[in-house]
């Protein structure tokens, strides 16, 4: 099913992303090996000039990657009407063995891109390119992920066919089924809810603290790692919570655990604001977590806390919105899981 408009758009974007990263990798390797700011050699001048292009290209490419994550989920959702047995994006993603791995890689790339963009911004703030080696080393790590993601995505869409009968969310996210999805769906709602809100409170508190102390130029050393770890934990707990109890409250049906049906018009498209806030908020928290610790680098002593504070502020706002929206969805529901 390659001839479907969103699919064509996705293929264009992912080939551009892969091409951009592939072009960036040889340059990144040269930077990692030969970068020497003290040298006035021609090679160093070329590297310094090249870095402005590469960071502009990659900024664009990685922003396109975020766009393609949204488009991918939308394409899966809209193709579900053409695939036998598919009622929502789950059915489409499940129709080939490559669907869910492609989605997972896209999510990983999204956060990798967020971290890279944060490092790149910070690097440009310093006058002596303090992070140039680190950021290009990270780039070398992201490139194979992007290539694998483009390949899996292509295989997924090429393998989709209306004749293949797929199973949808009813069987994948069911309490009785086997596999990770079923395990998560089978989590008891009480502990899942506790993990959801406790990890949420922790990440919000850490983000707010970073925003407060870093915004006043205070040291945030050590807080970076804690914030990063809290953000990753809260993200996992949030996804598990959506499957285990939030979806049930929204659908008002005790056995419907699908995280993708939230994107449907029948449930007020609740999934779009919910997931946008969660993903953007987590990305901001990670950006704050990687920016903060560089305050000890001399040329970033002012810039790093400022950037960390700004990212942490956005993380608090976006994640706060996510938890408020989730709570509202639970409170307005007519379903009671706890008698």
């Amino acid at each position: 099913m390659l001839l479907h408009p969103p699919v064509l758009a996705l293929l264009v974007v992912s080939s551009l992303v892969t091409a951009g990263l592939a072009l960036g990798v040889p340059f990144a390797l040269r930077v990692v090996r030969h970068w020497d700011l003290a040298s006035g050699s021609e090679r160093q001048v070329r590297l310094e000039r090249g870095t402005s292009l590469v960071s502009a290209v990659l900024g664009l490419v990685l922003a396109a990657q975020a766009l393609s994550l949204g488009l991918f989920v939308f394409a899966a959702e809209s193709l579900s009407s053409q695939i036998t047995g598919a009622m929502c994006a789950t059915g489409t993603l499940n129709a080939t063995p490559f669907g869910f791995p492609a989605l997972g890689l896209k999510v990983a790339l999204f956060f990798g891109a967020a971290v890279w963009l944060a490092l790149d911004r910070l690097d440009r703030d310093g006058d002596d390119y303090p992070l140039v080696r680190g950021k290009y080393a990270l780039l070398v790590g992201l490139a194979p992920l992007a290539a694998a993601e483009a390949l899996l995505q292509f295989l997924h869409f090429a393998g989709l066919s209306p004749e293949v009968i797929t199973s949808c969310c009813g069987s994948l996210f069911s309490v009785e089924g086997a596999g990770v999805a079923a395990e998560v769906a089978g989590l008891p709602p009480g502990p899942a809810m506790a993990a959801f809100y406790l990890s949420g409170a922790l990440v919000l508190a850490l983000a707010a603290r970073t925003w407060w102390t870093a915004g006043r130029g205070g040291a945030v050393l050590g807080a970076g790692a804690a914030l990063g770890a809290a953000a990753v934990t809260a993200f996992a707990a949030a996804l598990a919570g959506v499957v285990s109890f939030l979806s049930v409250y929204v659908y008002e049906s005790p056995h419907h655990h699908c995280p993708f049906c939230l994107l449907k018009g029948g449930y007020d498209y609740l999934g779009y604001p919910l997931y946008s806030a969660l993903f953007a908020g987590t990305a901001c928290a990670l950006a704050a977590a990687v920016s903060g610790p560089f305050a000890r680098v001399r040329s970033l002593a002012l810039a790093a806390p400022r950037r960390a504070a700004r990212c942490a502020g956005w993380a608090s706002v976006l994640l706060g919105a996510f938890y408020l929206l989730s709570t509202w969805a639970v409170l307005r529901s007519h379903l009671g899981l706890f008698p």
Partner: protein
Amino acid sequence: MLARQRYLLDYTLAALLRRKGRHLSLLLVYGALVFALASVLLFGSALRREARALLQDAPELTVQRLVAGRHDPIPAAYLAEVRKIRGVAAAEPRLWGYYYDPASGANYTVLVPATDPPPAGSARVGRGVARSRGLAVGDVVAFRDARAEPLPLRVTHLLDPASELLTADLFLVAEGDFRRWLGVPEGLYTDLALRVRNGREVRTVADKVTRALPDTRPVLREEVARTYDAVFAWREGVGLLLLCAALFAFAIFAWDRASGLSAEERREIGVLKAVGWDTGDVLRMKLWEGAVVSLTAFLLGYVLAYAHVFWAGAPLLAPLLKGWATLYPEFRLVPHVEPAGVLALFALTVVPYTAVTLVPTWRAAVADPDAVMRGAQE
């Protein structure tokens, strides 16, 4: 930080306005491309919505009889068999067929309405047929029936133009006239339409029908809907693929545009660098320029495509997407814009444009100011 971007944008807009002609031509080509792509996308998705809305009222299950793998009239006796199946709320025989009219060179759909059929010797007629044969209420039109004898029909009514997508080629006639016209003997029907009480039982009912009546084929509404969806999406994709050639041509054009910076622009970049702009600023300024051109062209093309599809009825695209019938229905699609469709179009146009203009711009931006200015004067 924001103020800096605002100044850059301010400068960019002034620079764009200084070279109106050059950018206007780019804007036109770009806008035309977006227009073509957006028309295909909007029209395709509107047709799919229309098809889905129409099928909502179709029977859940249609039972056809097959003889030698071809559709054959179904005996009335099958009706009783089907009604016995538990879960079937109602089953009605239907009489419909096609008639090729040599005079207008078109195929008509002839149908006996289930409720309130017209009296014998008269017909209710769709607007498309009326247009092609020049018919008005009260006219008598004659066709040759299955025995090649004339069958006169008086037009009593023209069908509502709001339903033209469905009724353009439609003739509603009485049962006796239908049987005479198309040669369907008494006791035979075209197919059976079944209503199933519980939506989840449709497949089971279909299974029971094939078991009770092995020479029949049940057609599920859900399957018809999926087929329509796939066909329209496929045609949309073919349209887009054809336009991909245009997309490539445009990418080459944009690349050429950006790499062939005029001497004046080179000098401008040289001056900017000489007064203290760094490479990043120049790149950002050029990115802003690209963004302004892109977004303007995108908006322009999209709005024009919207008008083309929903107000003008997509005259440029109808033959590709609607089918190849002789009688085109005239109908207005319900305006509808999918945010994700906009996103897809954005990814297809703005992202590649920005990507191809970046490298040439960077080449100009990293050059040393004195070299650029000297080069420009030579």
